């Protein structure tokens, strides 16, 4: 395990450097002065002159790249004029809200998707099997932000069951328990939206995987032994079906975060997506660049964790 871990960890730095080189290339290919992309709009002449010299934009490209890499790798992603804060601190401040939203959605959709997928796979052709299959097909085609809007219209607008926007009520006093309940109340609709989107993937994967496992020899043996069907399904079939499900879900963290981004805009959830939206509207180039970088690093680490979990659970991977 140690050697696999080391080998896998060593693959991370080249990817991060690759991402920075990609950023740098895009900045220089795009029409316009790279200075504004790196520093943002809103400064005065003397500031721009000073930054141009500091970033070495009058130097040859390779030197600029090295300066850019050195800056970014030490956490300097520029400064946001609009928020008057370093870009990295600004972005990292929004990460917890996004993690809360996408984490809740991931847990909810995984539990529900695995359960429905397993039950449906055990009864091929049943009503549940067909209904879940059809529903997952529709869900895979639903635009996330639209689903969010519909849920808003019905549950927050017409029924008035949930708050329309934000993460915390503006007039909330006191913390602790009251705060927790308030955040949970705000979380239901956005997390529900995101969970529904994710559900299609989880259901299909589990359904497929359990069906394949149920066709294996050891399941026949278990049946021949006379084990109860429930035990065979959950103890034997499901356990052996979960590995591919976990891997694929882990590999789709980028999709999950992209879904979270648009859902955050619909519900004014104060996370990365909302920040990205504000930055796009105000042309806060350094913030957009920074969010791409931070989200990419998050997905790289999610993939790493998934691979390590897989290697831990399935020894064949480690020695391959």
């Amino acid at each position, binding site marked *: 395990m140690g050697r696999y871990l080391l080998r896998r960890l060593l693959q991370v730095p080249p*990817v991060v450097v*690759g991402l920075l080189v*990609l*950023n740098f290339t*895009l900045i220089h*290919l*795009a*029409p316009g002065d790279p200075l504004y*992309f790196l520093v943002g709009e809103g400064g005065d002449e003397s500031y721009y002159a000073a930054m141009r010299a500091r970033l070495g934009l009058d130097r040859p490209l390779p030197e600029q790249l090295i300066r850019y890499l050195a800056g970014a790798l030490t956490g300097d992603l520029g400064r946001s004029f609009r928020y008057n804060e370093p870009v990295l601190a600004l972005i990292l401040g929004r990460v917890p809200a996004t993690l809360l939203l996408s984490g809740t959605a991931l847990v909810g959709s995984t539990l529900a998707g695995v359960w429905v997928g397993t039950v449906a*796979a055990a009864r*091929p*052709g049943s009503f549940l099997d067909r209904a879940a299959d059809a529903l997952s*097909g*529709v869900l*895979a*085609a*639903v*635009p*996330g*932000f*639209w689903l969010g*809007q*519909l849920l*808003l*219209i019905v549950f927050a*607008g017409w029924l008035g069951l949930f708050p*329309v926007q934000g993460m915390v009520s503006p007039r909330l006093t006191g913390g602790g328990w009251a705060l927790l309940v308030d955040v949970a109340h705000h979380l239901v609709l956005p997390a529900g939206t995101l969970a529904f989107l994710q559900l299609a*993937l989880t259901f*299909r994967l589990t359904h*497929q995987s359990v*069906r394949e496992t*149920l*066709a294996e*020899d050891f399941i*026949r043996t278990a049946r021949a032994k006379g084990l109860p069907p429930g035990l065979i399904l959950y103890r034997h079939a499901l356990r052996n079906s979960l590995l591919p499900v976990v891997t*694929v879900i882990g590999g*789709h963290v*980028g*999709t999950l*975060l*992209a879904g979270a*981004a*648009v859902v955050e*805009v*619909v519900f004014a959830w104060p996370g990365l997506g909302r920040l*990205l*939206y504000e930055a*796009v*509207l105000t*042309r806060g*180039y350094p913030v*957009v*660049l920074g*969010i*791409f970088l931070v*989200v*990419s690093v998050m*997905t*790289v680490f999610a*993939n790493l964790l998934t691979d390590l979990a897989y290697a831990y659970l399935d020894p064949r991977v480690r020695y391959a």
Partner: protein
Amino acid sequence: MLTWTRESVTPKRTAPARRPPALPIGALGLLGAVALLALGADLVAPGDPLRTVGPALRPPGPNHLLGTDDLGRDLLAMVAHGARTSLLVGAATALVAGAVGILVGGISGYFGGLVDDLLMRLTEFFQVTPRFFLATLAVVLFGPKLWLIVGVVGLTFWPGPARILRSRILALRGREFVLAARALGAPEFYILGRHVLPNALGPVVVTTALQVGWAILTEASLSFLGLGDRSAPSWGQMLSNAQPFIRTAWWLSVFPGLALLATVLGVNLLADWLNRQLDPRLRRADPRL
């Protein structure tokens, strides 16, 4: 190469034999309706769909079947013209992703060695980068023009087709008919184009078709974030404009979203059907590869 799989000797108890998949009437119906809407947009709503035609924020009624938006524009006209944008984006993106994927996957699979190694590292790199955020970044830097959005989204989708094609070519490369062509002195590019590619393209077409729906949704998401082309009416932009009126004017959100859903569902069902035609084991390919 002979492969032995467990399924070939174990009777499948859990998977009953299904009827052979019929022509996907639902998919063709949905897509046909959207295509009719796109083709007939000028008949349904002649003139510029983005001009003001009536009072603002009217609910659906006899004058404006789907209502009007906050600027008094007719929703039906915008939905109809938006169909053109979405279909164009879906088709063009698939072409870009397919072309780049075939080029990279073809070279990588056929020539192997160092070229293959480098191209595959590049492919893996683009597979781990979150494509939606990359597309957002590129459109922010280069400006929201429709052809650029198509190019950028297409370029984020090529790793799927590239990897599938590569693995197909690896399987075909050592087959007798390829060796025979080489023994007869055919040039490498001729063998690749004439003998290998035609036999490897099926799964690539399916993968690309499965990506069309994702491409349409990605463009809609970009438009929703305010990164759509302002000169072309698009469903994503309409949904973005609907956001401030979500509690007062439900129709602004419901109709463009339904159109989007119908299109993507139609495309996905058709791609699924193609997939089933090609793969006797009815295995669903993952559209997000």
